[in-house]
């Protein structure tokens, strides 16, 4: 399970944006951000509580004390399995969900302290692309309305120029503008995802949060959309937070990879570093289990155990019940995310022992 894939030289294509990204200021920075969801009590439970019965309120720690920054021009891949809080984190980065604790800085300024006009700017310049192209488009609006509504409302384009503007957005997303009088149900999954992309780009964002944006698509269509994301990155100088459970996709696109487990970041490093020298036992297990097209007739092993419920996460390091290297300290103390190599951070007690 420790078969570490060999390192590959950095691709030429990625060199330029990366050099720019390294000293670029962060677009978004999260400091100690947490998000908790509490189950709301129903009427009977509230009544019982009033009468003095001990009613337990379930609290889910979806995101638990995360620090994360996304610098201008880079593509950050956020990886994790279901329930690890990656979508919740993405929503907080996009500014559409406030954190319970901690601060979200947008271009160095607290998102909560922004004035009305600035807050609107911040929201416009960060756009989100969702997983389900069937649920994220209003079925009663024509494509032209879906794409044109926001730029018209925010005054990015005059009424006279709107038609041409919408055409340009659709063309850029790889859709024929002749189809703009149609409704979403008349399109295939891949085309709908292109509509979602055109809608996001129509308000001229510089930062896209893509939440499992290709997960629902067939492989051949997924490749088309991934290529589109990379083309748009070059043309529009976009920054991405790319959330996915698919390590292959993340490896292909990202400059930097952040790995989450049960609400916490367990490892963070440049993409080639993570795949060449994974440090955290969870990352190693994850990489070992990814089916690869190059690996033939291999023996699958499987990480033992289940992903624990975020309602009742294990104490100490969240991964310790499944970790082959766990020792006493892991069961009581939460490991801090520490730098183990330049730009490579990992949250594991084993790094202290060495």
């Amino acid at each position: 399970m420790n078969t570490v894939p060999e390192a590959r030289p950095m691709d030429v294509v990625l060199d330029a944006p990366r050099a720019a990204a390294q000293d670029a200021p962060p677009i978004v920075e999260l400091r100690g951000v947490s998000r908790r969801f509490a189950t709301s009590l129903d009427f009977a439970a509230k009544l019982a509580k009033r009468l003095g019965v001990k009613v337990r309120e379930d609290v889910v720690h979806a995101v638990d004390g995360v620090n994360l920054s996304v610098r201008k021009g880079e593509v950050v891949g956020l990886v994790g399995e279901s329930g690890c809080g990656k979508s919740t984190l993405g929503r907080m980065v996009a500014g559409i969900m406030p954190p319970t604790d901690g601060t979200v800085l947008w271009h160095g300024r607290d998102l909560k302290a922004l004035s009305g006009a600035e807050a609107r700017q911040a929201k416009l310049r960060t756009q989100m692309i969702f997983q389900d192209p069937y649920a994220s488009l209003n079925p009663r609006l024509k494509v032209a309305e879906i794409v044109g509504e926001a730029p018209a409302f925010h005054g990015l384009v005059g009424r006279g120029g709107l038609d041409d503007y919408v055409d340009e957005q659709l063309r850029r997303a790889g859709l024929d503008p002749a189809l703009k009088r149609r409704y979403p149900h008349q399109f295939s999954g891949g085309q709908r995802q292109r509509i979602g992309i055109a809608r996001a780009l129509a308000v001229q964002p510089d930062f896209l949060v893509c939440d499992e944006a290709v997960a629902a698509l067939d492989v051949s269509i997924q490749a088309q959309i991934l290529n589109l994301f990379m083309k748009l990155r070059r043309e529009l100088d976009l920054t991405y937070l790319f959330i996915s459970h698919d390590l292959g996709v993340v490896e292909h696109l990202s400059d930097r990879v952040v790995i989450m487990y049960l609400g916490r970041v367990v490892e963070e490093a440049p993409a080639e570093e993570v795949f060449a020298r994974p440090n955290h036992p969870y990352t190693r297990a994850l990489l070992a289990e990814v089916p690869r097209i190059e690996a033939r007739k291999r023996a699958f092993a499987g990480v033992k155990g289940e992903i624990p419920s975020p309602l009742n996460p294990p104490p100490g390091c969240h991964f310790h019940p499944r970790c082959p290297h766990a020792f006493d300290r892991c069961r009581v103390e939460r490991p801090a995310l520490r730098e183990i190599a330049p730009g490579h951070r990992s949250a594991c007690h084993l790094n202290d022992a060495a």
Partner: protein
Amino acid sequence: MPPTLEVRNLRTHFFTRAGVVKAVDDVSFAVDRGKVLGLVGESGSGKSVTGFSILGLVDPPGRIAGGSILFQGQDLAGLSEEEMRRLRGNRIAMIFQDPMMTLNPVLRIDTQMIETVLAHAKVSREEARQRARDALGQVGIPSPEERLRAYPHQFSGGMRQRVAIAIALLHKPDLIVADEPTTALDVTIQGQILAEAQKLCAESGTALIWITHDLSVVAGLADDIAVMYAGKVVEEGPVTQVLDAPLHPYTVGLIGSVPSRNHRGEPLRQIPGMTPSLLNLPAGCAFRARCPRAEARCAEPPPMAEYRPGRFARCIHPYEEAAAA
């Protein structure tokens, strides 16, 4: 000895008001004892309908319009519903993508499993219970005795899929058809399930058909691959040969579409356009509208041809070994 399953020229058509949908159109393949066949294709390629046809689970307006499904030499397509029922769940089992297709949400696991045992075997209730317990243990469910008394909703997604697999294993079938059983699962859980599948084939000689859209999964699991496109098998052969030296342009495109470290940062080799509607397929090769090698001759339906021993492709101008690498 004949192969465990041999499908010959299978046609499953759906006679809808809008026209005849040829979901499966002239599909042939074979699986031997203890072997794994990966049936690969994108949505609408007919891979699931092929699986349903083998189990006799095609509902009207669909029906098997031709061909034969030879299971240990016996043609399943000609069996009566009663005869089919005796085989299904007994000698042939199916695992679905959604385990709740197998499980009844209002019955306890033990009720469902004991019922399955008693449907095909004349044993006592206690012995049936013992078999159920063993099957749960076999797929790696901890404390099976306790879990037998649980309801499906008390299990996580991965555990439910294990229960569904345990039910499929109850009668030690000779053939299992698994339709995207790990697609909805997380990577670390998928690894566990794939490990169970491998162990099963190696230990009990069960033949396995693994239906999936994920080439990377079959790369690690299967012995042979059949690639489906628009209701037809377009390429077939041993896993290594198909993936390393694909013949059909669609297989080449599909492999190129997989984000893999070989192309890091570079554009993926994508297939232009999208899957055609099965309602009005163009005559000739269904892939020719998206194919970089299409020519006038492709308007004639290409026959399945054996280009190298055991390597079949439905294409008149397949890639040579070097071109695809």
